[in-house]
């Protein structure tokens, strides 16, 4: 299968592993952050970290869409789901994210009409089939998903669908990366850049990382050899004294991104002044809301939402995990009180969450032999 088999080849993986070993300095400890939760999932699914020398540590970043949704936004969504006549729609994992008094799945069990959709377009179709009801789509995700919501809202406007609304929680990738880089307790040597977000935004928005912070970033695909090669490219840059943005995922990611996607997003959305991220706090201009031209579809204008800020449970250390400060197994409730079946924190819900990836692939502690 083209673009799959060649990126899972064991001999090529061994060769890359040897190349990595040849470029690392003995005695130096390297920390490389994979920004995207999809990379975290692939790393543990395929055992990519087992092919790295002991002194190359992978740090897991904040790029898991459901993991960064704060509890207060979940509560707001649940509040809307209970309104009379409302059909509330969202993606699958979002239904299990805990709010302060349960999840959307719990709200459904209590009688709210909460429906899972695969795409925003599915939610629009539900609205068209139920003209006597008001349908809310709870939009989440980075720039990978935002174009889909934007296209759906354009269709809703063109088709004059008046009972379709969006509660927009889309976030953008660059501001949290800058916030992480400004964090004094994080020491990183480089980044594996998010592949799917980059299909939309391109690689150019990451140029501030080498320019302002002196750290390389390599945009990578999601097959095991993609990730291994990206790590090799980062380590080679460090060995050669270079520091730049490179694109390992050229078969999909144009350096300038998808111009049409960016245009449709610019038409439908505008930046929020600030937005709360789970574990990271409020970050300026890091999320999207509907533009004035699409205000008629904005659920937060149609209904009054509580908007109360809710603190994370004390036992939950998702914030430290999302910042890469601790490993998932270092959280005191990991694998005991917090499991994928009964998650306390968001990072245990989605398979792309770092905690769920560690739990599902049996990484309860770091025990690696020195290569």
């Amino acid at each position: 299968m083209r673009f799959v088999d060649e990126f899972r080849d064991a001999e090529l993986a061994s060769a890359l592993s040897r190349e990595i070993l040849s470029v690392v300095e003995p005695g130096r400890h390297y920390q490389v952050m994979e920004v995207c939760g999809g990379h975290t999932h692939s790393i543990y699914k395929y055992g990519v970290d087992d092919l790295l020398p002991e002194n190359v540590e992978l740090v897991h970043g904040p790029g898991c869409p459901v993991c960064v949704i704060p509890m207060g936004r979940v509560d707001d969504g649940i509040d809307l789901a209970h309104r009379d006549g409302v059909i509330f729609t969202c993606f699958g994992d979002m239904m299990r994210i805990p709010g302060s008094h349960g999840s959307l799945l719990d709200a459904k069990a209590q009688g709210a009409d909460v429906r899972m959709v695969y795409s925003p377009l599915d939610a629009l179709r539900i609205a068209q089939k139920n003209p006597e009801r008001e349908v809310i789509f709870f939009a989440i995700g980075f720039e990978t998903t935002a174009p889909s919501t934007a296209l759906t809202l354009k269709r809703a406007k063109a088709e004059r669908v008046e009972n379709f609304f969006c509660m927009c929680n889309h976030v953008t990738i660059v501001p949290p990366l800058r916030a992480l880089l400004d964090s004094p307790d994080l020491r990183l040597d480089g980044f594996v850049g998010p592949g799917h977000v980059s299909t939309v935004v391109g690689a150019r928005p990451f140029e501030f990382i080498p320019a302002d912070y002196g750290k390389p970033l390599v945009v990578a695909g999601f097959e095991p050899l993609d990730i291994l090669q990206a790590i090799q490219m980062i380590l080679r840059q460090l060995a050669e004294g270079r520091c730049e943005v490179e694109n390992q995922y050229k078969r999909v990611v144009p350096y300038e991104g998808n111009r049409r996607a960016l245009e449709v997003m610019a038409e439908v959305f505008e930046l929020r002044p600030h937005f709360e991220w789970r574990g990271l706090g409020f970050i300026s201009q890091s999320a999207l809301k509907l533009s004035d031209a699409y205000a008629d579809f904005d659920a937060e204008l149609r209904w009054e939402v509580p908007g109360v800020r809710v603190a994370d449970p004390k036992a939950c250390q998702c914030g430290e995990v999302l910042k890469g400060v601790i490993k998932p197994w270092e959280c005191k409730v990991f694998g005991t009180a917090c499991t994928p079946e009964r998650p306390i924190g968001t990072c245990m819900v989605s398979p792309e969450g770092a905690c769920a990836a560690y739990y599902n692939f049996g990484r309860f502690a770091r025990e690696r032999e020195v290569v």
Partner: protein
Amino acid sequence: MTAQHEHCDPAHGCITCGDQALEMRVVAVDSARGLAVCVDDAGRAAEVDTLLVEPTAAGERVLVHARVAIAKVGAGVAA
């Protein structure tokens, strides 16, 4: 055409929530509506919005997220 719903359920994880995308092959194009029928490598079909990657043609591989094609696969490498 709801085969991709198999990838989105609370028990097994949601690929849309996970920021994942799925490579699919275009099998039929409705350029007037900006839509195409695409199949994944298991042969499952879905209706996909192709407005962001037009023009598309049968046989091309596209990267699909939330029922929208966000990129053409292999566009940046030699065939």
